């Protein structure tokens, strides 16, 4: 019996994965989303800069810069990443926005 128990122990030691992933909701443009309302809120993520409606903004300053453009925190914000931008950069911007309570992020092609 102890052999079997050891075998099980080794099996679970080898197959278990530690370090749980966290998750972030993803939404793409199009589909059945509610109609976009209000002034344009387009964040373009370039290789070395982030622009809001064409004007360069610091990533930390994005929620503040978006504030006057939004009627409520659930208004849609459009995000577009340039080709070649690493996923980490996009996720950094998205995480910053969702931590500021702006959760309706829509990815554009």
């Amino acid at each position, binding site marked *: 019996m*102890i052999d079997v*128990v*050891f075998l*099980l*122990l080794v099996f*679970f*030691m080898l*197959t*278990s*994965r*530690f*370090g*749980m*992933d*966290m*998750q*972030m*909701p*993803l*939404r*793409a*443009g*199009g*589909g059945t989303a509610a109609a976009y309302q209000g002034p344009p809120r387009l964040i373009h*993520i370039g290789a070395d800069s982030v622009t809001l409606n064409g004007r360069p903004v610091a990533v930390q300053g994005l929620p503040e810069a978006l504030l006057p453009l939004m009627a409520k925190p659930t208004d849609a914000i459009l995000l*577009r*990443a*340039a*080709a*070649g*931008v*690493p*996923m*980490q*950069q*996009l*996720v*950094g911007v*998205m*995480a910053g926005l*969702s*931590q500021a309570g702006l959760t309706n992020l829509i*990815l*554009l*092609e």
Partner: protein
Amino acid sequence: MDIPIQRPVQRAENITPMINVVFLLLIFFLMTAQIAPPAPFDVVPPTAPLDHPAEGTFTLHLDANGQVGFEDALGETPALAALEQAYTRACADRGCFGSAAQPVVILRADAKADAALLPALLRKLAARRITNIQLATRLAHEAPE
């Protein structure tokens, strides 16, 4: 005088404490294990200070070179087809397409993958009626696996 030589008595080693410890370890690993199908390739998700543990029925992988994988299926078209098949099978008796109860797909994308691939992939998933998608991230202080 005949003094008998005292031989040390050979007693069987008591293995009960060891069995206890082994059982404890076994129970620990049983409780903590998540037996997930192995990833088709290595993916290091981007870091983000978010604290919602990822829970999904299916995991779609996207590596640093933009390769898509689902279970054994590699390449975008086979992987999406395999995902759709698994998704449809899971949905067959529940009629869950388009409802809030539809299964969650975890997209495990590499931190170095091209972000511009993401919306295109989402569009292709939406075309297969898979819309409940969560992006996997990891906490910054956790070392990559």
